[in-house]
């Protein structure tokens, strides 16, 4: 019953979400939050990959910002230095990042939790070092400027309004793709692994292979998001893709809920609002607040804040309908 309610809820959630997404950028609806909403869309793409990774593989990546950075730098380098078509650059960057993640995942996923976390943490640091040191390619700490705008034919995504729709088109496509994957054979295999890895393996599920798949998918999502970021701010520099951003992405995923796809939007929205509105006024304090959020959520609702709240609500609703049926 709970499962069926959940399944229906997930599809029902899409319609109002779509309306919200379409209305949001208009000034008369929310006021001028377009830039914030663009970043929300971009970061949601990264967060959903992390939510899947944490929820279905029981592992966490502390270097997701590096994959995001690879996408951003890939697009920036290919378009500014080699005059590659931006769309082609985006796809190439995603392919390179995916291949890279596959190698890392292949090496690490034979081991449990702690090693992937530390290896991705190290990877995140090393990628930033590469961005700083490969001066000829990346302009070092000065970063790359003059990244072109995206366009389809003569239609250029120049205004924030147009870029907003582009970003959210990608974001929703990512979410739907993730949703379909979770409901497919792969998804069922992953849930089986989550239930009991030994049992799943005994009926022929290659758990390591599925986990690597999720990891690669998350890296590709992050890379695409990074490319969109580069084409939105037209400038990339190494400082943007460091450890703190990786931790912030984990905060988004933790608030959104592990294994939750639609929670990713919620988590990202909360963190973006926190850091862009509240914390700027507080001046600092962000590390303290994010640290406290991570600890508190993991102690009290280890499945993630959004999922925890949803489950509580659904259990309450279920109890109410049952009581209604009896009387």
């Amino acid at each position: 019953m709970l499962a069926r309610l959940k399944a229906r809820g997930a599809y029902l959630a899409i319609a109002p979400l779509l309306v919200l997404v379409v209305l949001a950028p208009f000034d008369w609806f929310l006021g001028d939050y377009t830039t914030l909403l663009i970043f929300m869309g971009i970061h949601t793409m990264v967060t959903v990959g992390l939510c899947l990774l944490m929820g279905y593989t029981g592992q966490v990546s502390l270097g997701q910002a590096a994959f995001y950075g690879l996408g951003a730098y890939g697009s920036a380098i290919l378009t500014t230095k080699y005059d590659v078509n931006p769309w082609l650059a985006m796809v190439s960057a995603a392919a390179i990042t995916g291949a890279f993640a596959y190698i890392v995942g292949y090496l690490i996923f034979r081991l449990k939790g702690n090693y992937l976390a530390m290896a991705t943490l190290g990877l995140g640091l090393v990628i930033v070092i590469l961005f700083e040191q490969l001066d000829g390619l990346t302009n070092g700490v000065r970063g790359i400027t003059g990244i072109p705008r995206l366009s389809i034919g003569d239609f250029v995504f120049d205004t924030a309004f147009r870029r907003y729709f582009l970003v959210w088109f990608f974001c929703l496509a990512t979410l739907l793709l993730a949703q379909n994957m979770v409901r497919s054979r792969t998804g069922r295999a992953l849930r089986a692994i989550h239930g009991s890895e030994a049992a799943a393996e005994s009926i022929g599920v290659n758990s390591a292979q599925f986990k690597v798949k999720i990891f690669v998918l998350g890296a590709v999502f992050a890379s695409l998001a990074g490319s969109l970021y580069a084409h939105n701010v037209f400038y990339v520099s190494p400082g943007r893709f460091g450890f703190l951003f990786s931790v912030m992405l984990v905060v988004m995923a933790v608030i959104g809920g592990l294994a939750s796809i639609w929670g990713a939007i919620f988590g990202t929205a909360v963190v973006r609002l926190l850091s862009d509105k509240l914390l700027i006024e507080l001046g600092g304090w962000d590390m303290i607040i994010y640290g406290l959020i991570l600890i508190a959520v993991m102690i009290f609702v280890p499945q993630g804040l959004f999922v925890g709240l949803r489950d509580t609500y659904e259990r309450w609703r279920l109890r109410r309908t049952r009581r209604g049926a009896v009387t």
Partner: protein
Amino acid sequence: MSLDLIVQSVISGLSQGSVYALVGLGFTIVFTVTGIINFAQGEFVMLGGMLSWVFFRLYGVPQVPALILAVMVATVVGALLYLLAIRSARKASVVSLIIITIGASILIRGIVSEIWREDFVRNGTDVVRPPYFTGENPLHFLGASIEPQRLWIVGTTIFVAIALHLFFSYTMVGKALRASSVNRVGASLSGINPRTMALIAFAMAAALGAIGGIVVAPQNTTYVEAGLMLGLNGFVAAAIGGFRSQLLTVAGGIGLGILEQFAIRVDWGPLSSGYADAIGLVVLVLVLLVRSGKLAAQERAS
């Protein structure tokens, strides 16, 4: 490669690697006793160094008490980490525990940078250097110049390693810790409280990190983000020891330190010393490749 360059690299590497060894020992002790990797381990090195500067420079505490106080405060923070966060999440999964300790890590960093932010501004930079333990004049040995502080770092590490060995071999608490790392259930059946042991392990690991921090900060300086790299390299040392062997952890840490110094001091052509921070990760990947079968078997067994 000239002789003085080799001597210089080895000696600098010994002192640098000593700190990785201390951090690695912290990882190993916590992991063997509780099965947890404490991702905040590096922050205790930062805390040790930072607090010794804060107590000495800002609050005018004499040097030796300032150092002792710094280690004590860091130890208390380590104990609090266990009492407030880890113990409350009793049935937590590996991912939850990683995220909790990562949360603790940035929380500690955030608190340090908030409390002393204005002092860093007044200081002109947030990179601080507590005073040397003894003189600044480098000693000369086989054409290499050695800062006295490096001798302090190596000496302290040797002293701590021997003290740890004696503690684990001859004291009741040390033996109890060893027992619960061999078999947690068996140990608790014979009256060893696993929670007390976990508390001791976390506090000890914090103290080890902070000791590393107070001896290395005068040499390398320290700053709020310093714990990240030190934590990673300490993890590499612990991985070399398989999160089990203290001897291999120490050897691994020192080996990594020496490797790193060779990378920084020797001219490798197009590869600048800016890449030196990547060495820890490269070694980690190699260790995981070599040991992955063994580590995986060990995980299945536990």
